[in-house]
């Protein structure tokens, strides 16, 4: 974990209620896809945890959805604004288990962390398939970006206004070696039921601190209690215990 200041380079709307913010700062603590950063937003008391979409030596890309007061304020930020940021938070996706033909399943605002993951897997020579699910056409984002990486992309919309009609689980390819997923909990449950291989899930929970101190975001797993912010947000399929 590192605590440093990040400066906004750009912040633009890329789909309905979805924004892409590029910031510059010390990114050295961010080591794996699926990790998140925690931004201090002026006039909000708690920080806002946002998954890392992409990162290089000096730039951090965040793609976030406006869901409340904090993300609304973030959407108003402009170039030059600074955010006190905790980086390198959480335990990201483990690439070593991917096999040769991994499948990435993203739903809505769960799509962004899969971008950095796809990039890394493709760099390792893996043949990556991606299924992106959205509610409707106006919410679709990053289809072209995933395609530009060289992955095989399928888009599904719940209302059928774009791509395959239905959920990501209605557009699963027949054959894949392993899967990685991130999205709303109902989607994760469906993915859990529908997939035929092992895989990794990224979870969300209301967090206090985001770095393991407050125990606000704990969950029960087969292998004991875990903090979504620290041992998570990525958990393996075999350790997940769904609670009603």
């Amino acid at each position: 974990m590192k605590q440093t200041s990040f400066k906004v380079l750009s912040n633009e709307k890329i789909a309905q209620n979805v924004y892409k913010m590029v910031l510059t700062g010390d990114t050295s603590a961010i080591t794996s896809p699926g990790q998140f950063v925690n931004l201090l937003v002026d006039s909000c008391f708690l920080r806002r945890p946002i998954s890392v979409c992409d990162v290089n030596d000096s730039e951090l890309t965040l793609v976030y959805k406006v869901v409340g007061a904090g993300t609304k304020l973030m959407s108003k930020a402009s170039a030059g604004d600074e955010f006190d940021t905790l980086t390198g938070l959480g335990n990201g996706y483990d690439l070593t288990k991917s096999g040769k033909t991994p499948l990435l399943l993203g739903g809505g605002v769960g799509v962004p962390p899969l971008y950095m993951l796809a990039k890394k897997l493709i760099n390792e020579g893996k043949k990556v398939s991606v299924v992106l699910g959205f509610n409707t056409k106006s919410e679709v984002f990053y289809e072209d970006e995933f395609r530009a990486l060289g992955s095989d992309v399928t888009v599904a919309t719940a209302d059928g206004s774009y791509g395959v009609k239905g959920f990501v689980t209605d557009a699963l390819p027949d054959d894949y070696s392993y899967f990685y997923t991130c999205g709303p909990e109902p989607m994760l449950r469906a993915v859990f039921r529908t997939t035929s291989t092992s895989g990794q899930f990224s979870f969300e929970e209301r967090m206090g601190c985001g770095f393991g101190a407050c125990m606000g975001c704990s969950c029960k797993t087969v292998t004991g209690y875990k903090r979504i912010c620290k041992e998570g947000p990525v958990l393996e399929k075999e350790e997940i215990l769904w609670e009603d």
Partner: protein
Amino acid sequence: MGRLSVDLCGITLDNPVIPASGTFGFGYEFAEIYDINVLGTFSFKGTTKELRFGNPTPRIAECTSGMINAVGLQNPGIDKVISEELPKLKKCFDKPVMANIGGFSVEEYKENVAKISEEEQVGWIELNISCPNVHSGGVNFGTDAKSAAEVVRAVKPVAKKPLIVKLTPNVTDIVSIAKACEAEGADGISLINTLLGMRIDLKTKKPVIKNVMGGFSGPAIFPVALRMVYQVANAVKIPVVGMGGVSKAQDVIEMMLAGAAAVEVGTANLVNPRACLNIINDLPLVMDEYKIEKLSDITGGAFNG
């Protein structure tokens, strides 16, 4: 003895700044950010006899200038704390630590206090009779002078370290509870634990917290905490550790003027992991600004007469 040093129950602290239980884990997360040996001490995560998961999630809700938590004493249980957490802590913290001890019965408190007393690194025991997030236990002892006295009476003989009793503000008369603890031999009082609160999500029209209610903390509660510290410090002779919404050096000084011998910092650590480090660095500057030579001289400075 430096300008910032204070005495807490016979042990000298380099400064009065103490991260509060439940906001600092067992220290390691913060040790990634700064050398936690700069702290006066810290109070580790509330520990009970058995491993506890705590309450269902969501158990965090944001508020204006504060937050609500309903964690419910998640902890690995006292045996694991002793066998795993304390040896790990020893590697990043070489000062006496404050052991926050919870319980669900007088017997459990007694057993836990006896066990933790044997640990060399424990400097003080902070007896948590005030957690608002556990049903049928914990807080019930702290909401009534008679039951608070009963717990203190039971644990005092087995406490081989100074016993500081942590009180809840969710009572009619906190002074009578503090006095009852003092009468049974408590070596100190710490206050306040969180204020019972709740939030409702306008989208779902249901409580944000799964457990409905939780403990409200953060800068918003500072004036309430300060008032209670002032009342209790005026009424007892034993040292008082003040806490509740402290987030800057000025707040520490204000708490001490209200009668605190030392000050715990809680929620501020969760928002800014460097909060305590910043406070410790700022204290000499703020003391200069207000012409305070030595911090230990100002405890209770705001009392009349």
